């Protein structure tokens, strides 16, 4: 099988999607991230692993949180970091993606973190670069956002260590969400027995059942007895055409309120990848409530990205 993420020895070379990642590598990333959580709590929040390496964040699409956490992760590994918002620079002057990348390689970049509105952009760059350069997909179109999926399962594992005994519900705009796909793949790979998706028919991809999930259209049924509720952002900016009557109507049916949360298990945790639309997919009292782990997700995001960068850099051809 030709898996562009792995080198000939089966080691992780690029992180492009969670699909096709063996369970052993997933577990290794999560275990390594566990060690990095402590680093961020110390007096000196840095380790010397990527000293002398240059990490380039190329964001063809804006995302402040994702870019910031990647930047911090690289800096805490002692790498030099350059962040480019390409949407506002060369591309608007007509430069192609590969020209942008080649220019950065000429500046001796060692790793690229790529965000693009087109699915497959990170794969495209990964195929282009030489053997010692690593590519991390930081979100491509509707396709994949692997580090978000990883940090979500890392958060779940921290709060609910027994993954083989969990019911997880993913609620909302699965159709436009690259996070949902990454989450579903990670959860099923790690042996979570029951993953549910809850959404109106218009916000579900065709054949979503084939991803190994149970489909619900009603919150009251879908949330019953779940341990984890993963809310998705209603992707307003991606919404084309009339998939929903109105945001108010959506909140009434699918917004997570205290009443709906009460249907889940009493110790259920509530997650959201951000940025939140308060009052659309989630009520403020839930987002700020004591079952919410939304801010810990952000904190763990740094440790998980440090783990991914370290494993990639440690698997260089010379290594």
């Amino acid at each position, binding site marked *: 099988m030709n898996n562009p993420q792995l080198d000939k020895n089966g*080691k992780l070379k690029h992180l492009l999607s969670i699909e096709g990642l063996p369970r052993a590598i997933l577990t*290794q990333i999560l*275990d*390594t991230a*566990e*060690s*990095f*959580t*402590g*680093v961020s709590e*110390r*007096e*000196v929040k*840095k*380790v*010397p*692993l990527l000293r002398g390496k240059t990490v380039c964040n190329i964001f063809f699409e804006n995302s402040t949180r994702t870019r910031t956490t990647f930047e911090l992760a690289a800096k805490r590994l002692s790498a030099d970091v350059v962040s480019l918002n390409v949407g506002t620079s060369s591309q608007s002057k007509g430069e192609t993606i590969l020209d942008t990348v080649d220019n950065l390689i000429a500046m001796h970049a060692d790793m690229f973190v790529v965000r693009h509105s087109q699915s497959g952009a990170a794969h495209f760059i990964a195929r282009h670069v030489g053997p010692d350069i690593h590519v991390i997909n930081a979100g491509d179109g509707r396709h994949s956002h692997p580090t978000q999926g990883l940090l979500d399962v890392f958060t779940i594992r921290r709060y609910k260590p027994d993954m083989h005994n969990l019911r997880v519900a993913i609620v909302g705009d699965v159709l436009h969400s690259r996070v949902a796909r990454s989450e579903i793949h990670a959860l099923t790979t790690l042996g979570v027995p029951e993953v549910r998706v809850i959404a109106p028919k218009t916000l579900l991809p065709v054949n979503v059942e084939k991803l190994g999930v149970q489909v619900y259209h009603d919150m009251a049924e879908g949330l019953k007895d779940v341990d984890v509720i993963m809310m998705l952002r209603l992707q307003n900016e991606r919404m084309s055409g009339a998939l929903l009557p109105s945001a108010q109507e959506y909140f009434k049916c699918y917004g997570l309120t205290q009443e709906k949360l009460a249907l889940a298990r009493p110790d259920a945790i509530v997650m959201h990848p951000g940025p939140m639309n308060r009052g659309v997919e989630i009520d403020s009292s839930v987002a700020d409530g004591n079952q919410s782990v939304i801010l810990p997700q952000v904190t763990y995001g740094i440790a998980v990205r440090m783990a991914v960068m*370290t*494993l990639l*850099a*440690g*698997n*260089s051809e*010379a*290594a």
Partner: protein
Amino acid sequence: MSLPDAEQLLAKLADDIRPLLGKNTALVGIHSGGAWLAERLQSLLGGNIPLGTLDISFYRDDFNRIGLHPQTKPSHIPFEVEGSHIILVDDVLYTGRTIRGAMNELFDYGRPDKITLAVLVDRGGREMPVEAQIIGTRLAIKPGENLELVRDAAGAFHLKLNEAA
């Protein structure tokens, strides 16, 4: 060669450490053998000395050659390093590279007043200017051989010598 009894060496370490204990003393063991030893030393020395563990995977000097160690464990330092006297514990002192990494990591928690190195076995073969102050025993082990501490099901320690692969 016949190897010395690890439990007797451990008792000797405890005896040698005891006079050094002060109010800021803490034990830090290096994963995994040193962490086991530090845990046992804590109970041999009365049980209320602060105890920490280090996994130096993030500080190894061979990361660029061999990548990350396949299994890393979180380091755990549950006391104030600033101003402390740390007894750093490891099972086998060899090249000195592990100790260099461990000291670098400790300094990222704070500035200790003093670090004392205690090892069960000094096998020679140093590549760094690192020496232990407290030594269970010195053994001459050939470069190709691997001396390690093992812990049996009952929790007792043994030294084990393996030929290099």
